């Protein structure tokens, strides 16, 4: 996906033509939506906790530089080594440096979207380091040589049969059994050996607490605990927005995240890490590193409207409820973050020149805004990015990339026509007489008629008809 700009239109057409893929997503998203709804049956509770969680995120953003400094101070006091990276290249270099110093050959990873953003696995493999994803979904996707199609359920695009075939092909001694319990147990056997042998464990961070220097990680499988407990070195990666002020700010976030994501009251494990193994303790890693990544986030933060993008707690509920995502699936976006949050986050990180199509892959139905647990105005930000793509304010990378003289002229013509009664009368009259003669292959009309029938113009304008009925002109 590096180099050329991803072609969302082509990728989504291909996805739409794949009935298997569409079926897999439709079933999964329907299940996730109904499970989530059951968790928020009490509207008063949802409204109250949601307002609280939004306030927690906004308070963190209002003090972001101070909280990051505080986090660095408390983590350092706890024995965690803190690293800062402005770009993904810097973050990859930090990771490689730690791995070289510890002479690491095998890395096990828990789920981390930030490392997807960094393409860390490819960087490590190029350096001759074996890296294994341990979240079952991520493991499946890694074996398949693809990328996650959902931030919470990475392998949601595949069904049991497809996964059984994949395991049979890729895992030694695997039996050909289309049985989730068997396949899960098979992955357990493979990965347990790797957890034992790994030199370094890597993870993401769901929330980092400035007050106490604590890294919170939630998960169901126990792989996150394995990666952060068993290997002698643990490296955690976080986007710089993931900080919260106080330990008490964690429960509201944890209350909404799993319920929004998968409809569970809570994940099996809520893991809070506040340092490496202390003297006298018998287990836990000897070293814990925290890599804080910017990668364009400080740009997003600079604009008071776009800043709301950084409230996100990465629950993925916006994907589950998005009519576009459900139809085309996660891979069509060719981005680490697909769906509604991806459509506002990725163009801001990677630039509108490369990602200009993403903010347009939206019907503006507002479903994502209604279910967002931290009340991100996703659709408003989407609208803003569409404007930035043609009328750049300088706030977004690649602003103005979609500016077109024809389009600008068409709109100024439209504005002039609607501002003058005479021009309006002449134009509508012309349209009613000549509109049907215009070929559907006209440059701008083509965009519409490519996929839709050309509308037929009525012989008489609405004004004309109204006048004939005796409605007076104003």
């Amino acid at each position, binding site marked *: 996906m590096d180099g050329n700009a991803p072609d969302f239109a082509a990728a989504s057409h291909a996805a739409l033509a794949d009935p298997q893929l569409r079926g897999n997503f439709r079933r999964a998203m329907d299940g996730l939506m109904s499970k989530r709804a059951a968790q928020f049956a009490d509207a008063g*509770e949802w409204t*109250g*906790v949601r*307002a*609280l969680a939004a*306030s927690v995120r906004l308070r963190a*953003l*209002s003090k972001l*530089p101070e909280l*990051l400094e505080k986090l*660095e101070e408390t983590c350092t006091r706890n024995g965690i080594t803190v690293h*800062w990276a402005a770009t993904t290249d810097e973050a990859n270099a930090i990771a490689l440096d730690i791995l070289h110093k510890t002479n690491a050959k095998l890395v096990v990873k828990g789920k981390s979207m930030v490392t997807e953003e960094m393409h860390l696995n490819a960087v490590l493999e190029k350096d001759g380091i074996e890296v294994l994803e341990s979240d*079952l979904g991520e493991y*499946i996707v890694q074996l398949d040589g693809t990328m996650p199609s959902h931030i919470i*359920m990475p*392998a949601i695009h*595949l*069904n*049991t049969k497809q996964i059984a075939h994949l395991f049979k092909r890729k895992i030694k001694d695997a039996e050909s059994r289309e049985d*989730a*319990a068997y396949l*899960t147990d098979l992955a*357990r056997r493979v990965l*347990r050996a790797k*957890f*034992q042998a790994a030199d370094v464990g890597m993870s993401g961070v769901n929330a980092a607490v400035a*007050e*106490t*220097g604590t890294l919170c990680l939630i998960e*169901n*499988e*126990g*792989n996150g*605990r*394995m990666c952060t*407990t*068993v290997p002698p070195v643990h490296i955690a990666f976080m986007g*710089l927005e993931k900080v919260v002020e106080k*330990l*008490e700010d964690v*429960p*509201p976030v944890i209350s909404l995240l799993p319920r929004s994501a998968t409809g569970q*009251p*809570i*994940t*099996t*494990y*809520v*893991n*809070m890490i*506040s340092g490496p193994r202390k003297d006298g*303790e*018998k287990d836990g890693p000897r070293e814990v590193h925290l890599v804080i990544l*910017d990668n364009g986030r*400080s740009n997003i*933060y*600079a*604009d*008071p409207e776009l*800043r709301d993008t950084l409230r996100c707690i990465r629950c993925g509920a916006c994907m589950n409820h998005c009519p576009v995502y459900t139809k085309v699936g996660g891979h069509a976006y060719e981005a680490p973050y697909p769906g509604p949050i991806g459509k506002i986050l990725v163009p801001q990180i990677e630039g509108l020149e490369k990602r200009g199509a993403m903010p347009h892959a939206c019907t503006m139905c507002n479903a994502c805004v209604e279910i967002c647990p931290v009340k991100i105005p996703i659709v408003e930000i989407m609208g803003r990015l569409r404007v930035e793509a043609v009328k750049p304010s300088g706030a977004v990378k690649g602003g103005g990339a979609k500016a077109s003289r024809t389009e600008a002229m068409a709109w100024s013509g439209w504005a002039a026509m609607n501002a003058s009664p005479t021009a309006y009368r002449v134009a509508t009259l012309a349209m009613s007489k000549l509109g049907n003669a215009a070929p559907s292959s006209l440059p701008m009309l083509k965009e519409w008629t490519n996929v839709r029938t050309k509308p037929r113009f009525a012989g008489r304008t609405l004004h004309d008809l109204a006048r004939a009925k005796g409605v007076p002109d104003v």
Partner: protein
Amino acid sequence: MSDARNSILTKLRKTRDAHPLTPPASDFAPIEAKQWAEEERLPRIRRLMEAVHTEFLDAAEADWPAVLHEFLAREGVGSLVYAPETEEGKRLVEGWGAGSTALIPYDRPFEDLKPQLFDSIEAGLTTTRGAIAETGSLILWPTADEPRTLSLVPHIHIALLRADALYDTFLQAMREQGWAQAMPTNVLLVSGPSKTADIEQTLAYGVHGPKRLVVLVVHP
């Protein structure tokens, strides 16, 4: 990389000061309002945890080692790793009897016990610092005496829960136990055995962590 640090912080500070943000007050009342009567908490915890395949045993302070002994024998569990320096560890070994489940003390660094933990030890016993009614979660507070891998690596995790240490919410437990003043290396909430739904939304238990979670409730 301190260049990155300073440039990031300077930029954040400058742009925030240019457009300050006033957050709404954080009103914790919607979480504080979640309360259950004392007699409702344990049944609720049990119902929520059983829904995700957690098993429960009931015992009294006087006989919990015997109840555990009987359970392990019935299930044919060959070995149990435990924390020998804790009060509960000491209680456990009193009169355990030979010929039953082998007790293995976690009395050395993880590295020295790692092969056994991964390959042969079948169960691990830990205490808890209580449980949470809202979500059905155990609070695990690993210490130097009671390492975190006890509840992670063996296939069966047995957790001792005192029936008088129940909280309404995560927030209440954290406040009443004063967590923010003294966070240990690792704190955990555990709400069931390890599970996944990553294969076509089908729930499967025992992916990477324990396949079984057994809560041994000690009634006062």
